[in-house]
């Protein structure tokens, strides 16, 4: 059974079977990553472009590594400058790349909707590596994979996404994916960081981190973008840490096993205390390893789709 779409633009509306297929396929690739020779010839002859219009280290590295493990030919186009600045328009850049006969484009962009726009101007398979505050589907897939790896299931779990939900691309993808897989999803953060009408997606909203900890099996803790402080969505990093940060004391108070995810990079002492970031409940580095397997699975499933 191939995936139902030639692109991965987000997890909104993606059928459960597709998510299941990606997660199951990742298990195979996860094994490949444990071999001494971590390379398979699956995508030999395929050309993949990593089109990164925004600074990203880990997502780009993870995609690149996944491509190399699958023996694809890869090229990188990274720029922090946008088309509003002088120079080539986005469309012209894409047309140029398209003219070099590429099979897949991995795109990261500051504007939501760019991956969707790409499908209209390119014939390649498009994978969204994060668009604005919209979606980041491979991150959510690797989060779900990591949860399933650790707890053996997703269905029926209570998962809370903690942090700046409004400005997050990870939150929305996780919400769609987890709900589709049968989890109960909540968000927790200061009200200034909760977007309009999010409850209408079937999500419960928490403003108390203690309540969130006590009522959930999994916390997916988002990075607080320190530069956002300028928008005064929260007063100080200290206040954020004191009222919404995950600390060892908080976890001990509730005296329960809880799984902690973080998409990285971590601000130690802000959303997670160092003790928690290195502690027994977190699976942050597993997420990173699983990220390569998930991206291999997505590349493989789209690249070999009939």
């Amino acid at each position, binding site marked *: 059974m191939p995936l139902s779409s030639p692109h991965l633009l987000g997890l909104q509306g993606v059928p459960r079977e597709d998510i299941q297929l990606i997660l199951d396929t990742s298990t195979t690739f996860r094994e490949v990553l444990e071999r001494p020779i971590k390379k398979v010839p699956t995508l030999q002859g395929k050309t993949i472009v990593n089109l990164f219009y925004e600074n990203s280290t880990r997502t780009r590295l993870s995609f690149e590594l996944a491509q190399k493990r699958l023996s694809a030919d890869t090229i990188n186009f990274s720029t922090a400058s946008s088309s*509003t600045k002088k120079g080539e328009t986005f469309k012209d850049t894409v047309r140029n790349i398209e003219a070099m006969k590429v099979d897949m484009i991995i795109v990261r962009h500051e504007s939501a909707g760019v991956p969707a*726009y790409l499908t209209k101007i390119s014939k390649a398979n498009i994978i969204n590596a994060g668009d604005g505050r919209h979606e980041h589907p491979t991150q959510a897939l690797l989060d779900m994979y990591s949860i399933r790896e650790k707890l053996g299931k997703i269905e029926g779990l209570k998962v809370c996404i903690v942090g700046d939900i409004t400005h997050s691309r990870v939150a929305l993808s996780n919400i769609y994916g987890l709900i589709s897989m049968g989890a109960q999803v909540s968000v927790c953060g200061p009200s200034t960081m909760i977007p309009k009408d999010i409850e209408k997606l079937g999500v419960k909203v928490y403003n108390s981190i203690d309540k969130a900890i006590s009522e959930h099996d999994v916390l997916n803790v988002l990075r607080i973008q320190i530069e956002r402080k300028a928008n005064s969505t929260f007063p100080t990093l200290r206040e954020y840490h004191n009222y919404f940060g995950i600390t060892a004391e908080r976890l001990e108070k509730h005296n329960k096993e809880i799984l902690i995810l973080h998409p990285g990079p971590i601000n130690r002492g802000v959303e997670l205390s160092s003790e928690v970031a290195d502690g027994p409940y977190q699976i942050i580095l597993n997420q990173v390893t699983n990220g390569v397997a998930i991206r291999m699975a997505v590349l493989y499933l789209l690249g070999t789709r009939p």
Partner: protein
Amino acid sequence: MKILLKGLNLLDPEQKLDKKADLLINDGIIEKIGNIKSSEVEENNIFDFNDMVCVPGLFDMHVHLREPGREDEETVVTGCNGAAAGGFTGIACMPNTNPAADSAEVIKLIKEKASNHLVDVYPVGAVSVDRKGEALAPIAELYEAGAVAFSDDGVAVKTAALLRNALEYAGMYNAPIIEHCEDESLADGAMNESLVSTQLGLPSIPTVAEDITVSRDILMAEYLNKAVHIAHISSKRSIELVREAKARGVKVTAEVTPHHFTLTDDNLKTYDTNYKMNPPLRGKADLEAVIEGLKDGTIDCIASDHAPHSIEEKEMEFIYAPNGILGLESQLGLTLSELVNKNHITLSDLVYKLSINPRRILNINVPSIKEGEKANLTIFDPHNIWTVNVSAFKSKSKNSPFDKRLLTGKPVAVINKGKMFYENELKSI
């Protein structure tokens, strides 16, 4: 020269005129209304407009001509051609040109470029120098050069103090201040704030950004007893505020665009930048409030906010693309399709909202269908079903979300200043 228009349904509610008759126009003046024998004029000058509706020439009080500054997007002449093709004999153009219409020279340039055209062009002057919201523009000089109203459109007048001075100063000439109502500190977004913006992950502008400035402007107009006109009203709460203010006798008027009574933020789901405009497309409740406001007279008129943009500018990533869409050539068709044919308003209401009221707000003479008056007329076919074809637009730009949309009701001809635009041709009559 004499021309004879046969079989028109004449409609001029101000003259209590609503009857089928012929019109004889002699050198641009309505000479005779009634049953007129064809033998009175040359055969080539007889037009069979059987069952077409003829109303006082339509007027669009919110148009962006891009001259001076962005003549690649629209010029005074191409904008006027679009207006004529869309059924309009008069337009008011906004001051956000480059340079801004903050000097008599710019106002005169626009008037000069339009002087020979069928379409009357009434420039709106800037409230502040370079629309920066700091120093007051030379309002008296602009008025004398031909400005009929004042606005910093694109943004609201920046401070309450500047608004006060603008209302007082323009008030000396009985000229209204036209306000783009939006609180700047809440306006950093690319679409309306709603579940849709949450799902699309786009930065959003809440309706309260509009409501706050509408409140401020109403209170100031009330305090000073001066006239303020709310441009492109789009939020339910703002419409309620205008309704309440009108009931108190405040000199406030309001316009709405066709896209705000036709589309909602749901239309953005494809990230098509042709749906990006400011104020943004709102929710269903706002759209319903707009229609209610049009019905009960809270909203005085319909204006297009015609905003031409080049293809390369609109074909940008969504958050970078500029706001605005074309309006002149789809406006009458949308008003007929969405409001008249759906029985929200009557044809007579349409004449008020698209011809009489905008001129009254700007203190411009309202044309009448009356013997001895200048012929300033719009003729349209209310039943013609047609498909919008943006590539055939007279406007220089092509940014419209209405391309390929089926509309019922189409402009047929306009007559003004001894000229007629009919069947794609502009000629002297």
